[in-house]
């Protein structure tokens, strides 16, 4: 089995685990964790495709994108967690399904 698809499968599974975490867990922080996992999986994919690119070149596009993705993910997590804390401070709960004031 080609190494590339091995890595792709790993990142796919990592992604789906992240997705499952996000979809199943009630706790707000777990959703963020899920998102983090999904982002990590995505970054992994970037690097894999950069590494196993058929035309060899020394332009580190994959790496750069991953760097930026990591930076943005960090920013996102910071804001997300800040939100969670603010919500917790206001509603005394982080149970996502009870935070449905935006209900239709």
């Amino acid at each position, binding site marked *: 089995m080609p190494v590339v698809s091995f890595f792709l499968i790993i990142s796919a599974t990592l992604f789906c685990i992240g*997705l499952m975490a*996000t*979809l*199943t867990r009630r706790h707000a922080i777990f*959703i963020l964790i899920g998102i983090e996992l999904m982002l990590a999986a995505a970054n992994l994919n970037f690097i894999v495709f950069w590494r196993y690119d058929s035309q060899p070149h020394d332009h580190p596009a994959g790496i750069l994108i991953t760097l930026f993705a990591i930076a943005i993910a960090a920013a996102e997590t910071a804001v997300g967690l800040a939100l969670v804390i603010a919500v917790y401070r206001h509603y005394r709960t982080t149970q*996502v*399904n009870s*935070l*449905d*004031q*935006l*209900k*239709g």
Partner: protein
Amino acid sequence: MNNLFVQYLWLIPAFPLAASLLILFLARTRPMAAGVAISGQVCALILAVVAFGWSIQAPGWRGVYNFTWFTFGETAVRIGCLLDPLTAVMVVMIALVSLCIFIFSVGYMAEDKNFARFFAYLSFFSATMLGLVIANSLLSLFVCWELVGLASYLLIGFWIEKPSAAAAAKKAFITTRIGDIGFFVGLLWLYGTCGTVLFYDNGSGCLEPKGLVLLGSSATWVALLIFCGAIGKSGQFPLHVWLPDAMEGPTPVSALIHAATMVAAGVFLVARVYRIFSFGMVQGVTAALTVVVWIGVITALIGAFIALGQSDIKRILAYSTVSQLGLMMVSLGVGGVAAGIIHLLAHGFFKALLFLDSGSVIHGCRNEQDIRKMGGLRRLMPVTFAAYGVGMMALSGVPLLFSGAWTKEEILSATQSWHGSVLPYYLMLLGVFLTALYMTRQMMFVFFGSCRTASKDAHESPKIMTVPLLVLAACVVLFSFVLTPAWPWLERYLTGESATLDLGKLIQPILIVSLVLVAGGIAAGVWIYRGAGEIDPLEQWMPALFGFFERKMWIDELYDHSILAWSLAVARGMAWLDRQVVDGSIRLVGAIAQRFAALTLVCDEEGINHGFDGSCGLTRQLGSRLSVWHSGQIQNYLRAISLGVLALIIVYLWLL
């Protein structure tokens, strides 16, 4: 220089007109009204005499003064005043007669409550009549012609409360109007062809040679159309029905309008535009003139015969006027223009005299007009009897002293010398005989015989009424001096020559013939009506013929059943058409609109409202059903998103 006076000619009608307006709006008391009217008339008479004097200076002199009445766009409508022998004579006659009648009516209308209004109408009438006579353009003539018609309508229908008076006024007005239509068409035709309606416009007038040439072949038609107006106004054959009914008005009115002036207007008109009639004359005969002659002949005979059958004193005189006018038309037709005009003047005087007499008789017999109820008034009303006698003599044509004879004699001589045909001459002789007959009949019934019911306590009219009678009688007699063939001054003056005294011509063969006829007529009349009682002797002899005459030869009924019936039918048809078709269509459109409105209401109500509410309901339901999806659970959203992404991936790969 000589045109100077003509410029002020229009003052003559202005005075009576001012008087009438003054009376209508300001003077409400009786003396005031009478005074103003009479003074207006006197001024008019003075000016008329001055005008007459002015025109005598030179034979055949003509003063013309034209001015523009109004302009619209570039075309200017010009009218003017004309002073020639015809005008001068007519002006004097009208003014004089009007004055006498004004004075007479002061007494006659004394106890009438609308005294002021009567005098206003009278002065208005005389003003318009004078205006008609002095007009130098057919247009202003036509305007005055219409105003005269209006005045006659107002005066005939003076006693508004009497329905017969109102009907008579209406009848008079309408019949004259029918004639006027022809006149108007003629006027337009004339204007159309020769471009101007001015009679004399220093060369380019329609009566001057240049205008006549322009007229050319259509001259006969224009003439005939203008003659229609004359027929209507002067009560010639087809349109004479209104004249006898016009007697409904007060007697001075009948005297003024239906004896002297208005009816004469027709003859004056023909005389004025005689050149159009006689254009392209062949031995003195043109188609137009022949028509005039025959109309005149028929009218004269009809008038005479019907007069025999009438029992109302004024109606007899009316029919005599009709026949005399017929005679005048004949004289004009045959070429004796001057003779016709002279007869017109004389007739004006003695017919006014006769009417005023009948007025005082009626006044005396407490407004009784049926001659069969009168009688023996010669002793009770001597002055009236004398004046009446003079008038009767003049009318029937007793020669020597009375003007009527001379004028008739002139006319008969002209008729005799007419090349058209001889028949009119003999018919006119019959006319003379009949005139004499019915006048003596009236004389016998009214003044001779025993006093019948109405004239039992008759008393002589007051001085104010008898004086004008005497004045008029004097005029009749004096007038004849100017007419005798020996010194035919007036005739020469009218035709523009100078007159020479020649006693030799006094006796003419025609005079003898007419003398014989008149004497026969009077004798027959005296013999027939010597012991006449309530029933007319002629009626005893020939009741059928008499009934025929009495019923005015069924002409009125003929008209009623023919023209009136048709017009009524047409009117009814039009009414039906209007009601059914026009109203119907409108109702139809209304109905359609209503249907349409109902339709729109339905579709609006059902279609739009329900449709809209329905769709709103639908969207709300859809919305509520969809809102279930927005459960607020973040995970639901995330699940949906991931499924969406998955679907995208699959589609993408499937497409790849």
